[in-house]
């Protein structure tokens, strides 16, 4: 009985985990550093996926995406190498190192994959290459941390990322079907021409955050602009705007 009431006075052990790890770094919806528990509740389920098209960036030969990573474990007073590896997928055509992206162990890029001394975060690049084959297809690059003896992968949820990329006009993941209707390359190009804006993920997400009513307004604006332009075309003896497969372009009013 008395033994049951005995209290423990054992001191907690100091942190002593020698194995350092790496995680990709995210913010949740409240602009706080994300925890794994945030996924689904305070982060989109697609938090680790990126879509990219050379098309919306003016078809450059190469472009670089940057990803912030953070460490777990002790800091070091020396630079530490970061190793990345491609994780092959069977859902889409995988990107090919040297053809679609600069290999992570390419000697010209290796110096970029380093955690600086006494730092716990750094941004690392993924250099995408605009191979002509991307004009007609989309490829996927799934990559994560490789255990290089210095760092091991961290949490499963935060230890890999996915980039789907192409040089085609593709539907931005932020596309708002309620406001812009079904995505199509001709429609998207018309929206770009009419407004001078890209209507890509960055622009749509920016407007969504800063001026949501503007997106509702642009739904109305595009709807009536399309009506007006189609009327002009018909008056000129032309067909209304259609996608390449013949589908008539429509932008229904949101309400």
């Amino acid at each position: 009985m008395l033994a049951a009431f005995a209290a423990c006075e054992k001191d907690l052990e100091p942190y002593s985990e020698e194995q350092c790890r790496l995680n990709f770094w995210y913010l949740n919806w409240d602009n706080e550093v994300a925890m794994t528990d945030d996924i689904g509740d305070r982060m989109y389920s697609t938090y680790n996926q990126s879509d990219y098209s050379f098309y919306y960036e003016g078809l450059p030969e190469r472009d670089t995406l940057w990803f912030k990573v953070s460490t777990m474990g002790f800091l070091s007073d020396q630079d530490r190498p970061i190793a990345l590896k491609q994780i092959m997928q069977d859902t889409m055509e995988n990107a090919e190192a040297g053809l679609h992206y600069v290999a992570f162990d390419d000697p010209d890029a290796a110096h970029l994959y380093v955690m600086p001394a006494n730092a716990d975060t750094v941004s690392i690049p993924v250099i995408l290459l605009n191979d002509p084959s991307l004009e007609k297809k989309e490829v996927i690059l799934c990559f994560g941390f490789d255990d290089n003896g210095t760092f091991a992968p961290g949490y499963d949820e935060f230890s890999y990322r996915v980039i789907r990329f192409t040089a085609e006009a593709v539907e931005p993941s932020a596309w708002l079907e309620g406001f812009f209707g079904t995505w199509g390359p001709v429609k998207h190009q018309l929206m770009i021409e009419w407004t001078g804006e890209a209507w890509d993920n960055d622009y749509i997400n920016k407007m969504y955050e800063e001026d949501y009513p503007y997106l509702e307004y642009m739904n109305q604006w595009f709807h009536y602009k399309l009506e007006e332009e189609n009327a002009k075309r018909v008056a000129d003896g032309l067909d209304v705007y259609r996608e390449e497969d013949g589908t008539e372009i429509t932008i229904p009013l949101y309400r």
Partner: protein
Amino acid sequence: MKKKYILACVLAALGMVGCFKDDSSLGTTNVPKIQIAEMRDTSIVSYSGNILAVSPVVETEYPESELSYAWYYFPSNNVNSEEWANGFRNNKISEEKDLQYEVNLPSGTYTITLEVTSNSNQYASMQHFTLGVTTEFSNLYYVLKETADGNAELDLVDGTDVNPDMVTKVHGAPIPGSPIGLSYIYNQGYVTETGSAGAKAMYVFTDEDTRVYNTEDFAEIVTRNTLSYQEFPEGEMPCNAFCSLVLMMVTNEGFYYTQPYDETMDYTSASRYGASTGAGGSRYIVAVGGGMSGYVYWSEQEHHLYMTDMNGASPTPLEYSMPSGVDETTLSCIGGGTNSISGSETNWFLVENAAGERWLYTFGASTTGVTVEPVAASSHLANAHIVAANGLSAPGLYAVDGNQLYLCYFEEDGNGIYDGDNEAAVTLPGVGSDETIAYVSNQYLNAEAAWADGSFDFDNLVIGTQVGEKYRLYVYGDKLNSLPGGIPQKAVEPAEGTGTVKSVRYAAPVNLDLFAYMASSPIFPLCD
């Protein structure tokens, strides 16, 4: 068997007896208390150099040198997550015993907390009081008046004090155009140099212009040119605005909506309107079931009642039947409002044709069951040149006929005619026989019913009279339930100014978040 149980219980009870005398030395240490006397709730005008001065009464055995003091403020509504982060200690305003704090806070209600801590053992005690913060431009009536040259001006009226012609004083010239009305919006967004901000804002509508003023500082935060993402066509006149889960505005030719400003819901846009999504309206709008059942307005464009909902859905025509032989397209609306007595709600619109014949539309807390009754020509309601709603205190509406105010009670005889056999003259104490009644409105705020701060709730019958070029504004009533039967109880001293009163709104310094619009009873009237 039973005895055994009793014996066991007695032994167990004995086993639980504790000792009151022991050899412990810890219990001999005395920890004196700190007692802070209650502090009175108060209010103050912000941004005017006013000092909040409080000398707390603190009783304790600790020497003064051992005590430390900390004063904090905490907003009661619209608190964002950052402000919650450190609880009530987020905003420290003083470390002195006697508080001397110049108040430069946005209007609203705040909790002021004093924490007194013993430096020797960290024993602490707290006391708090409520501070109502208003501004020079809030917690008073905005009076929209027509000037001698036919333009619009605003007087700010606080009791008998009148701060006249504010638009000219602050912005250089009156608002062009004949005044139409005011709307007070608790959740208005507007463009700033760094993005957007929110305001409790007063809309001013004239037949030529629309302006929106921040009731914190009287800044002109929206104009006709910045109301919408696109330019309003010449001749299109915005005439009323109201807020629910979206911010809505009607013009004579259209219906518009946008996002209100409410940080608690991460709504932080500049509240600019898009393109019209429905039929043009009028000043006459009612919130049915507090808005939960929709918002109904008279469309002067379509000569029919239209409804939208809390989300600003594209307005649709209400379904109802007109009395035989009445062509609704010839009718114009001259009044409307909501009446809610003991949970029984009546919404009404009064319309007339070019010959002056009138019909009264009524319906309850749902948008179905609209009845349209002819108004008997002999009634005061048929002849009134002013009609106005009673909101919360009498089951009827006000009408002025022959310079006499009447309460026209809703009839329940079901004979299909408003025959005027239940109308009663209302005495207006203090109004002289030389004065002409030119304006009537029952203004009220019932924020408490919407789970918001009720400390500024009120119920006023506002009467504007005219003597030559001057107006007098009589504000009867005070808190809610101070107008029993909708009738003024005692004479009041009027405020006096020049011009003719067209619309009044009270700029209550209350923070209403969007959840307030989920209330199922009226919070405030949407039209005069």
